């Protein structure tokens, strides 16, 4: 997969983030009051300023760095799976989403056997339902399924 020059982009993003925090800190939250002393914006504004300066230095350092970060497709699949779990939970609920995720992941992506899939499913069901659901008393979201039921 083609490499992206995130080594240069990241310091610039940090500079941008630092500027936002600094501007809000200095202008909206208040920096210093002659009676009360430091205001809510005092500390984050100073830190954001340091971040902007460090970001600029880091950007110039990154220009000398020839190596680029490489992002592989399977890594992006893990992220997609995580986001998929998040979205699907609102539709079918958390527990069914987890079951579906394990089966799809192990059968379609990893091409695992049914035996291995069911063992992993049993371990995850134990953790989710017994440990978190029954022992810790967590009420899992049921999504739109709740309305239908």
């Amino acid at each position, binding site marked *: 997969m083609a490499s992206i020059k995130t080594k240069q982009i990241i310091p610039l993003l940090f500079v941008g983030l630092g500027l936002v*925090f600094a501007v809000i800190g200095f202008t909206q939250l208040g920096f*210093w009051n002659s009676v009360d*002393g430091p205001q809510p914006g005092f500390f984050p504004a100073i830190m954001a300023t340091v971040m902007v300066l*460090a970001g600029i230095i880091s950007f110039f350092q990154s220009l000398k760095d020839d190596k680029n970060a490489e992002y592989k497709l399977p890594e992006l699949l893990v*992220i997609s799976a995580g986001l998929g779990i998040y979205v699907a939970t609102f539709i079918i609920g958390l527990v069914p989403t987890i079951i579906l*995720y394990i089966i799809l992941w192990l059968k379609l992506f990893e091409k695992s056997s049914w035996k291995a899939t069911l063992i992993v499913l049993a371990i995850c069901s134990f*953790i989710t339902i017994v440990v978190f659901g029954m022992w810790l008393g967590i009420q899992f979201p049921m999504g739109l399924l709740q309305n239908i039921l």
Partner: protein
Amino acid sequence: MENLELLLRGFTVSLTPMNIGAAFLGAILGLIVGAMPGIGSLAGVALLLPLTYKFDPTTAIIMLGALYYSNMYGGSFSAILLNIPGDSPAVMTALDGYPMAKKKKRPGQALFTANMSSFIGGSVGIIILTFAGPALANLGLKFGPSEMTAILLIAMTSISWLVGENPIKGMLITMVGILLASIGMDTLSGAPRYDFGSMYLLGGIPFTPFVIGTVGFSQVISLINERNKSSENEKVDTKLSIRGSLLTKHDFRRLLPPALRSGFLGTFVGVLPGAGATTGSFMGYAVQKKFKSEEELGTGAIEGIAACEAANNAAAAGAFAPLLALGIPGSGTGAVLLGGLMLWGLNPGPLLFQNNPDFAWGLISSLFLANILTLMIAIMVIPFLTKILSVPTKYMIPIITVVCVVGSYSTNNSMYGVLVMLLSGILGYVMQKNDYPTAPMLLSFVLAKLLESNMRKAFIISGGSLNIFFTRPITLVLMIIFIALIVVPIVRSLLGRRKKEYTV
């Protein structure tokens, strides 16, 4: 003597069936997590944090403390048998552990050496903690806002300087942690800030999902590339037994001096902010090179395994001293433990030993208990290690993902926690890819509010003058250290560059 009496009182807390059970569970989980290549103590403690909500704070920290501690034992297993360190402190163990297991055909003895050295080093560390912890807390009682500001600045600077190769990146990622922690309510006035109109952001970024994502989910993303290596793991076909793994008297005589020496060295390293078990292990091995070993280090020498294993366990114990006495964690894992303590309503710091002696001494005594329990379990699991280490990584990926999702949801029964976990996981992954260490971000995220409140109080006391940081003796010494921590690496880097140009 007073410390010993308090320690005995601590044993009455830690030796309840519930706490023994928690230490036992923590020790087993720590060994497993430590033995699994690529997970490590930081992710292990982060993933298990939600499980402890059911316990009272003392039981919870006893379990997490035992887990962190036994993780150091577990890390050596895969290093010795597979030449794949379970976590970073075990990197040095592989140098002698693997050759001893393969070339010398003594895998059981290599494991036994690692276990015994971990026990000796850990015992030295815990004994020193018993005496140094309260002494450090007494010193901490003399600290006002200016001293606390200076020491927190040192803690944050040293970890960003020590972890990773590029101090600027360390500083940048430290600032990210501080700014993320400043979202929500202002520490002193309670005024909302940086909420951008979001109800969720008004409550701040929840600690547990943030940590689970940064270290747990980002680890899963990285593990995906390791999943095909499981076939190598399956090659472990050596059958081990406890009897066949016992050390001879001669082996034990070789093990003892380096283990004791590294125990003292590792404890000292563990107390330093930012140094931690990995630095302890590296230093233990480096120091052993200066001493005589029966065999050359790197060829499967018992002394090599003993030096680094004793040092990393001692460092893990030593790290509890600044954590409990000053409320300053020495590593990423320490930061997660501190975050957990804060979630349970405890404020680690100089007053902890006075206000919550049962908790502080219960924890210290539980480390003794965990050390013995872990040694026993570590020896008993030797025959089953080949099976534990043969679990393919591809099955660990969905299991850890599920723990990440469910654990972050359970923090406040909200999908907001899952969203924070996913986003911080992506952030941690991108940071790792671009050589930004994530430990400084966690440390600064936990310490930011403490630093801010102390810094602002110091400025209120001084009427806005910076003199407060340079006129009080303790603050002055600490500020000199802080400035040196910033200036020395820059000067060294400039001198190094000039030298390079000169030689070219």
